Each structure stands twice: as structure tokens, then as C-alpha cells.
């Protein structure tokens, strides 16, 4: 990974990423490349330009201001290869149709921003969730941030894909965490490599280690039609979890809304399943795991943050 640690969003009043009223910090950068990634703006650990074509009023202020000579067609869709994400067009755009995704992960300032909502966390049994991207990329600054939050009694939850180096994580971040939501996608190593870019050896190893630590650990399986929701995969994951003595697992039914987020980043979609999962399909998956004696928890289907316009997310500009 290059450059300073980045975040891509701070969502306040989040009700879907852990118990109670929470703030969710979305870290930018991820070691996996899952083809269905719900937060594609969190994949690359660099500042990127994002364009919301719907908000564009067609004034061409961006073209006029661009110091790199990126021409019109690129601006209409996405800046393309010549774009240096310098932000000149963001400033020029009257409609806020452009924004730079990626702000410094500054533990002190983030602690102050996150602690503003402390009374809401405390009174609702909520707290702060680190999500992404992959938060474990930055164990030191996040550990520092988590410590500042824990010092004020704030519950800190980590959502992770499990792909991380154990030592720095265990040293800096793990001791500061109240709970971990650990995503398990595919049991088969080859399939994992194919759909997520890496195999799952390190993920499995980390999960086993965390099983033996004191932290509250909840495995979650994202249900991706045709990829992770197959009988073979669920059986294999279920068997493995039961063998580890795990009692509880959560299911995250597929949410197709992420597809809309690829275009603004200029990323072509490889996987493009556009429908919500039918209720019976989710129920069948749950039953399959429950048959092994696991307690299965359903997650809301629309629990993923969107990038534009829902308003629950504070713009990064308010942090800078």
C-alpha cells in the first residue's frame, strides 16, 4: 500500500452496522478484490475522483478548470487515465457532482468528530464501527483512534474481511476492540482466489486465532447469488464453523445497489447480478446452516452505505 492512510466516508446515525446508534468509519483500501464488492470506492488506497452524472448540470466548468487537459468526453463519464485527482474540477463544479474520495485518517480529528455523538451511542447501546475497505490495513492509527474512543467508554466494532497480517493487528488494534464482525465468503481456496483475488488461507488462520481470543466474534456470510450462496459453499463453511465450536453466524443477503457505484468511479463491473435475493432463497440458506445447529441471524438487505444522496453520510469536507 502506498501513501498515508485514508478514509472514504464517515456515516453518522448508522443503525445497521452493529448494535444501537453508531457512526461508521469507512477506511479506503482493501487487499481483496471481490467481484461483488459493495463499496468499490473503498478498494483503492488512493484518492480518487468520483462523478455523479445525475447531478451534473452540464456547465463545463470542470473542463475549463482542468489543469491536465482532460477533455470533455472524459468529464462526462469519468476523468480517465490522464486524471491526477487534483481536485480542481471538484472545486469548479457548482452542483457538487464531483468529489474526491479519500481523506486522511487522522486519529485525533476523527476521535473528536466521532465523540460528538457519544451521548447517542451511550443511550442506545451503540458506538463506532470501523468498516471499509479494510480497516486492518491501518492497525496503528486505528488502534490509536479506538483507544481514544474506548477511553470515553465507546463501544468499538471492527468489520473485517480477515485478510491481514496478524502481528501488527494483534499488537495495536485487537486490544482496543469491543467486537468483530468477520466476513467469510468462500470455503474453497481456488474459488476464493477466483472471486476475491486471493486465497483464503490467511483469512481462515486469522479467524481461528480470533476464536481463541477474548473478543466477541461474529462470522458473517455475504450471500452472493451463484457464488457464495451455493449449497456446497454453505455446507463447507457451516461444517468448518461447527468444527471450531462457533454457535452463531450472520447472513448478509445480496444487495444489488452497489452496481450504481461502479460507474462514478469509472470501474467496469465484472459481476453484474442486478436483482435482490428472493425471500425463499435467503430462508433456504439460513435453514441449511441452522440444520447444523448454528444460530442464524439475518441482516438487513439494504444495510450498505451508498455514496450519493442518501444524506446519512457526512461529507468528508466537513472533516477537513
Amino acid at each position, binding site marked *: 500500500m502506498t501513501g498515508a492512510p485514508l478514509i472514504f466516508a464517515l*456515516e*453518522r*446515525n448508522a*443503525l*445497521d452496522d452493529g448494535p*444501537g*446508534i453508531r*457512526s461508521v468509519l469507512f477506511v479506503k483500501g482493501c487487499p481483496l478484490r471481490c467481484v461483488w464488492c459493495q463499496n468499490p470506492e473503498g478498494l483503492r488506497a488512493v484518492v480518487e475522483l468520483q462523478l455523479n452524472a445525475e*447531478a451534473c*448540470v452540464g*456547465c463545463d*466548468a470542470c473542463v475549463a478548470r482542468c489543469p491536465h487537459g482532460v477533455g470533455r468526453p472524459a468529464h462526462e463519464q469519468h476523468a480517465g487515465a490522464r486524471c491526477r485527482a487534483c481536485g480542481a474540477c471538484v472545486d469548479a463544479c*457548482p*452542483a*457538487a457532482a464531483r468529489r474526491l474520495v479519500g481523506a486522511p485518517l487522522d486519529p485525533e480529528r476523527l476521535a473528536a468528530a466521532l465523540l*460528538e*455523538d457519544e*451521548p*447517542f451511542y*451511550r*443511550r*442506545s447501546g*451503540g458506538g463506532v464501527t470501523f468498516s471499509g475497505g479494510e480497516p486492518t490495513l491501518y492497525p496503528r492509527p486505528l488502534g490509536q483512534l479506538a483507544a481514544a474512543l474506548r477511553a470515553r467508554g465507546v463501544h468499538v466494532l471492527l468489520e473485517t474481511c480477515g485478510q491481514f497480517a496478524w502481528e501488527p493487528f494483534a499488537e495495536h488494534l485487537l486490544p482496543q476492540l469491543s467486537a468483530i464482525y468477520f466476513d467469510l465468503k468462500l470455503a474453497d481456496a481456488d474459488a476464493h482466489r477466483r472471486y476475491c483475488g486471493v486465497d483464503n488461507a490467511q483469512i481462515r488462520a486469522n479467524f481461528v486465532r480470533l476464536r481463541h481470543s477474548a473478543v466477541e466474534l461474529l462470522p458473517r456470510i455475504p450471500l452472493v447469488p451463484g457464488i457464495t450462496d451455493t449449497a456446497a459453499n454453505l455446507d463447507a463453511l457451516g461444517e468448518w464453523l461447527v468444527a471450531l465450536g462457533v454457535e452463531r453466524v450472520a447472513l448478509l443477503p445480496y444487495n444489488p445497489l452497489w452496481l450504481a457505484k461502479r460507474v462514478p468511479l469509472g470501474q467496469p463491473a465484472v459481476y453484474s447480478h442486478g436483482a435482490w435475493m428472493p425471500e425463499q432463497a435467503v430462508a433456504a440458506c439460513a435453514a441449511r446452516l441452522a440444520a447444523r445447529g448454528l444460530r442464524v441471524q439475518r441482516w*438487513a*438487505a*439494504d*444495510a450498505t452505505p451508498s455514496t450519493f*444522496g*442518501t*444524506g*446519512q*453520510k*457526512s*461529507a468528508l469536507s*466537513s472533516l477537513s
Partner: protein
Amino acid sequence: MSSLAAAHRYLVDRVTPVVITTKLRAMAAMLNHRPSLRHHLRDVHPIAGAHAFRATIAFVTEDGRDRAHAVFAGGTMRVSSGGAAEPDLTVRFRDREAMRGFFAGQDTFAMLLDNALTFEGNLSCLLKFGHMSAAVTLGGKKVAPAQPWQRGPARPEELPVPPAGEPCAEPPVGEVVHLDDPHLAAYTLADFPRLRRLLWAARTTQPSICTERALLVTEHALLHRRDGDPATPPVLRQAEAIHHVLCHKRAIIHDDDLLAGTVTAERIGIPIFPELGGTGIWPELLTVEARELNPYRISERQIEDLDRRVFPFWINENVREWTKAHAADRTALELDERFVLYFMWKTQATTHTVVDVPRALSRGLVDIQAEARRREAESADPGRRAFYRALWLALEGVLVYAAHLADEAERQLREGRFTGEEGEARRATLTEMARICRKVPARPAETLHEALQAIWILFVAQHNENMGAGLVLGRLDAWLDPYLQRELAAAGDPVAKRRGIERAIELCGALMLKATDHLPMVPDVGNRLFGGSSENQVITLGGVTPEGKTAVCDLTWILLKATEMLRLKDPNVNARYAPGVNSAAYLRRLCEVNALTRATPSLHNDAAIVPALTAQGFSLAHARDWTATGCVEPTSCGRHFGHTNCMMLNLVAPLEMALHDGVHPVLGRQVGPRTGGPENFADYASFWRAYQAQLGCVIDRSVEANNLLGRAHQVLKPSPLFSALFDGPMEKGKDVIEGGARYNTSGTAMIGLTDVVDSLAAIRRLVFEQRRWTLPVLVAALEADFVGHEALAAELRHKAPKFGQGDALTQEIAAEVQAFVQARFAAQEHYRGGTYLPGYWSMSNHVAFGLLSGALPSGRPRGKPFTPGLTPAASAQAALTSQLRAVARLDGARMPNNIAFNVKVVPGGGDSQRAVVDRMAAYAGAYFELGGMQMQFNVVSSATLREAMAHPEEHRDLLVRISGYNAYFVELNRDIQAELIARMEHQLGAAA
């Protein structure tokens, strides 16, 4: 312009002048010669004798090109083209189209509100003209409604029983004595068949105009004008008036009533106050039964009574006209009549206050009368002697009315047939009622039933002295709990105790239902201005006692239960929460009732309100003894005459004036000081000074108008009954309207703060800091309503911070505006020696004022509603926690007349009731911890509201909170419905 439009314009221009004179002449011919219409011009009254309508009314277009006038004198109407010398009334039309619309029968008030029509002179003349015009057009016949009145099920047993909440997990120590489950979750409406029947009657009865009070008060006034001593002090004259009304008012006890007495002679009556704004219904007399929103039943006889026996005698004698006639400078009053800058309530009422109920209950009126007698005897000053005599006489009227109620109960006992178990029960109830009405309010109340009956009789009496506009029921839990405690402590066994508790629920419910037996008279334009509002008779629960201890008690929970079961829009239930004193369980129960009813109670923070009051000079004990008034405004109970809704002021208008050198675009003339055109401002500071100058001017004018109206009330309408029931007037020897109460204030409502803050922030950030465009360019875009300026509009909406997002700039600007408002009001002279207290809530005037405002630098387009109360704009799209923090950070000391902060929340389909309530309590608790003053949840989705718009008949009881008051959604006009739907919706939890 299309050729069709051009042809239309040509026709209008050519034809209109002819049409006006022709129309007026046709009208004159009818009125002069048609026997059935002649009484409009000349009439006979049993007391006043023969009289004729005398007025000269001039009609003119704004450009002065078309003029005509009508002279009414000696029983005839004469019409001439051209202008008139010294008309009583000049009606000015914006253009010829408006002139045509007026004569084609468009609603006069609606045209006034839209500024299609303005007037100078006597408004009642205009209203009478409107009625005559309608009478001529309709042949004097009232218009029948298109559809018969039909609301709710045909029988009480079919009224739906709403679900109860959950039992209380852990009853809070110190806030419950006799209730095993303070939530009383075992009970529903089905357990109280009598309440169900009364509720059914309240829900399904069409409100009727009631002329009883109007006729009596007119009769008294005419007798006084004919036979009375002109030197009679106003307060004594008014005491005679209320005595006359109460002595002759019908004593009514309905079937199923537990409490005797009614505000009017109708089941749900609209009393008319001709000395105040009553003539407002004059032009609508023939059509009010057929109007779309909130139609009133009215009989031919009632129309005739109001038109011939009431209104003609108040054309010049009502508060509005008297004030104008006696003002050296009418400007401030004329601005009020344009509806753009401010709206003054004193033309309608001075209520929005609360009498000293505990004193009346514990002493009884006879004892208070005795004190008045003693003070009269001891006083040498004739004015004071008259004042004390007035207090005695007003109370005597109440006692006569109570005696008449006892007589009526006894008559029903004599004449009724009581068979079977139910009959026996009714006989027992009537017997008890007769006993109680012989005892209270004359002597001290000793039981809960006696106390409630006394409160109701006093309430009825107050409603007959002053127009019910925010009369307060008060801190019923704190006041009544001692009676309940005595009764429950005396209950021998658990069964008797349980019966006592059930009886208390029923009695409290009966009082709340009693308060639905009348509605304020609302001209059709009021459906637009204050859509769906009832009187707003506040019940305030919880908080602390004057000593600072928790005031939550058994009766608090009982009243919450009644609120939950009945789901009434009025009484307007408000709950106080004192962090650290009141329990978390109590806050949670408030949220549960709010979730179940969708809209009530609203929540107030004692930790913010009490210091705001002590900062205004209230003692700590008196500040702690506050009740909400009207919508949200705090009033110290029984000692504080605070007309808390004296005006509603448009904060946005001065911004438009600052952008136009003191000219308001809608008014089209110089209203404020000349602060320079938009090209003259070099920096934000100079523009901010211009806004302050314009706002200061509007505040000064509004106060001038209020003081003029207040002085008119001192001459026309002192309130001896209020004065007898208040703490202060007896000692000071002065009526409440003269400053007799211990504390004197006037409360104001500042409307559109968020719109102003967002606009100023955009100007500061984008125009003066970033220099994106100049102020003249911005003003040009505003004048074009952003058409052709889309990029600029987008920038305003997206590139400037908005209040509620948590940035420092909008927070700073909000604080500056509030500090200026507070200081400007604090510097004002007050007609009864009090102070002006600013508040930030809007009823539904944020919609009405919004209609009259142009596009704003906040990015809001022309004509759209402002933000309700003090609420971040939906377009700011700020997270709920950020919004709550932003509002909580405002300084309560600058908002002593409180705020209304609307929060629309939507439970996810998958949430349990418990999770929803827990979350609401978390938001409210954290907001209060951060210093927030008031908040009100609407627990409803926009989808439900849209569904109710499409199928109103299925959503008759859908309760919503507007800005400080509740309404049934289907009774609102479409603008307000749309505003509610557009409010930002916060998900309370995950979807299913």
C-alpha cells in the same frame, strides 16, 4: 405571450372597467329593490331600533386607471364611476384580473393573502360587502354541501380500539405510588365504553356555528349603549358582559357526560366573538357549510342572527377597527393586514395563558369573591372599587352558571326514566353531578371528580369571556394527584383501589373529551394559515415541582394512558422531562405514547427551559412551575400573563428587503430603511448590518402594532374573569391586560430561522469569501426564480453549508441572528410594562409566509414553504444526530418562548415496538443531555401520508404534528400536506 393569452389580456383590459361598474350597479339594483335583500341596507333590531348600513367603499386598480365607488347610506346603495372622497374603505386590486376575480366571487381573504387585493380602511366593511355580494349572487340562499357529512363508523362499538403499549419493566421509584403497572398496559379503550361513546361522538359530529354567545354579548353591548352609563369603567362593563352571558347561557348535560357543562350550545360548537375577529366569517355565511376543508354546519336562523342581529353592531367596535381608528400612525397595523411581514394575534385573542387553578380549587370562588368585596370596601379609589366589583361580578356569573348546571342535572333526574342497571347508574351519576355542581367551584374541591368538574366549569367560563385560542388546561397531573392520592389511600382493599384507578382514567379521559366540544372559528383562509389547528388546549405533564423534586406521579401515568387511548389532536399534550430528576422509564413511556399515537406528546427539557425563564426574572420556584401554552411556549402557572402567541414574524422578509434596498418584492414598496442595493455591499459584514437594519425595523413595527392592539384591549376588552382567577390582579388592583399579573410578557414566534441562516451562510461563503459571483448576479438569479441560472442554483444548494450539518459557520450565524432578535425585543417598550420573549415555532405559517416569498440564497425556490419551527432543512440531508446536536447547541436563553423542532421518524418494518421506543428515547435523552430545549416526533412515513392523501376516508384519525400542534392529516390543506411529506424522514431502524 401566445396569441390566446394576448387575446385574453385584451379582453380583460377592455371589458373590466365596464364590468365593475355594471357589476356594482347590478348589485345595487338587487339590494335596493329586491325585498328579500333590502335588510342588508336597512334593518330593525329589537334593542338598537331602525338602522342603516353607512359606508363609502372605493374600488381601484393598483395603477389607478380604473376606479368606481359605492355609497351606502339611508338604506340605499348608490354606484358611481371614478374615485370617492374620504372613503371608509378602499379596495385596491393588483390588476384588472384580480378585480374581475373579486366580483366573480373569489374568496376575499385568499385574495388578501395572495396580495391580489389590498385594502385601506375598515376590514369589516369589506367583509360585509363580501357577504352582500355573495347574497346577491346566491339569491340569499346558503349553498348545500356536495356530499353529506360522514366521518367514521356509524356506531360507537365500531370505533377501532388502538393497541396498548407494553407493561412497564421496572416502575420508577419515587414516581409511582399506587399503580402496579404505570403503563396501565392491561387497559384499552374497550374497557371504557363510556369514553368510547364520547369519543365516537367527538369524532363523528360535524362542528356547528354557535350563535348563543354572540347574541348574548351583542344584546349586552346594545343594552349598555342604550341605557348604560358611558362612564362605566371598561373592566366593569366587561364584567357585566360575562355575567350576562353566563347567566343566560344554556346549561347542558349530554347523555354519557360525567362532567356537566358545555362551551357552546352545540354538540361541537364554533363560538363567535364579534368584538374580536368574529366578522371574519361574514362573507362565508352562505358557503361555509359547503367549503372543502373543515365545513361548519349553520342554520338559516343562525345566518340571519349573525348577519342581522350581531355583526352590524360591531363593524366599528371590534378590536381591529377601533385600534386603526384611534392610531396616530396606522402603518404598523396596515402592514399586519398584508400578511407578509408579520401576523398579529391580538385582533383575535389575548389568550394563550393559564389561570391559577390550584388557588381556585383550594379556596373556592366564594372566598375569592369575599376578598374582592373586602378590598372594594377598603379602597378609596373609585377605579379600584369598580375593579374589585368587576372581579366579584365575573365570578358571580360563574356561580350562577354552576347553579344552572345543578338545576339541569336535577331536571334530568326528575324528568328522566331510569330503568335497569344502566338507568340506575345514570341516576347515580346525575345525582352526584348535581351535588358537585352545588358545591364547586363555589367552595373548595375535595375529590378528584369535584376538582375536574370545577376545572371544567372555569374553563367553560373563560371560553365565554375570551376567544379560546390557546387557553391552557395546565399541569393537571401535579394539580390533581393530591386528590387521587387521598382517595386511593382511603380505598380499603385492592378491588376498591383498582376501581379508583379505573375511575380516574375515565374522569381524566372525560375531561379531555370535554375539551373537544368546541373549536375556534376559522375563516377559510385560516385553513391555509393554520391548517387543521384546533384551539391547542395544553395539558403539561411531569417535570419538577417548585421545590425541584420530580413531579411525575400516579396521575401523570393515568393522563398518558388517556392520551394513548383517545389519540386526540386537542388537548395538546406536552411533556416535561427533567434530566437527573425524572426517570428514564418516564422518558421511555413518553416515547412509547408518541410512537403509538404517532404525534403526541411533544417533549420539553426542564434543564433548558427553567434557566431561560429565570434569565427573564422569574424566581426559580416560579420558573419550575411552568406549563406549555398553545403550541410549546412556557408560561408560569397562574401568575404570568404571557400572551405567548402575540405575533408570528417572518424572519425571511427582512432578508428580501435587505437584498432590495428596503423594498419588499411582494409589497412592492419601501417598507424598511434604505440600506443600499445589492451592488453596494463590499463585504459580508456590511450586508449583515443591512439585514439587521431591516429585521430591526420589522421587529419595531410588529411591536408597535402589538402595543397599539394591547392598548385597544385595555379599553375594549379587559378580562375581569381572568383577573379574578390570576395571582396578582387582586393585590395590584389592576386587570391582567393592564399589567395586573405578577409576571408580564408577550411571546413571539420567529419563522424561517433555518431559511435565513442557510441564506446568509450562502451569501457569506459563496459571494463574499469565495467570490463566485457578485451579489447583484445572485439577486438577478433570485428574481428569475433560478430560471436560466441553474448552475448558480446548484452551487447555492451544494456548495454552501446548511444548518444542521454540524459546521461552525451556520451555527455562528444562527447564534448571531438569535442574539440580535433577543436584544431588539428586549429593548422594546411594552404596553403593560412587560417584556417581549422570542421563540422559534411556526404553527403552519411557515407554509403561508413561504407562499409570499421569492427564491432565497439558501437555494429554496419561490413560493415553497419555509422550514417548520426550528428545524434543519430537509435539503440539508443532515444525519439525525447532527441535526439534534445543531439544534441543541443553540442558546436556550435566546429562545425563552421555546422552539418547535420537528423530527419525522419511520420505524423499519422489521423493528419491534420495543426497539423503536428504545431508539426514540435514546435520541431524545441524548438531545436533552446536549441542552436541547424541545423536540417532537412524527412517527409516520411519507408513504403513509401519500396514501392518506389518496384515501382520506381510511385515515380520518391519522394524527400528525405540524409545528407545535397536532392535526388530523386529512383535514389539512394540500400545501401543508405536501410540506409534511417533504420533511426529511429518518429511518429508526433496519428494514424487514
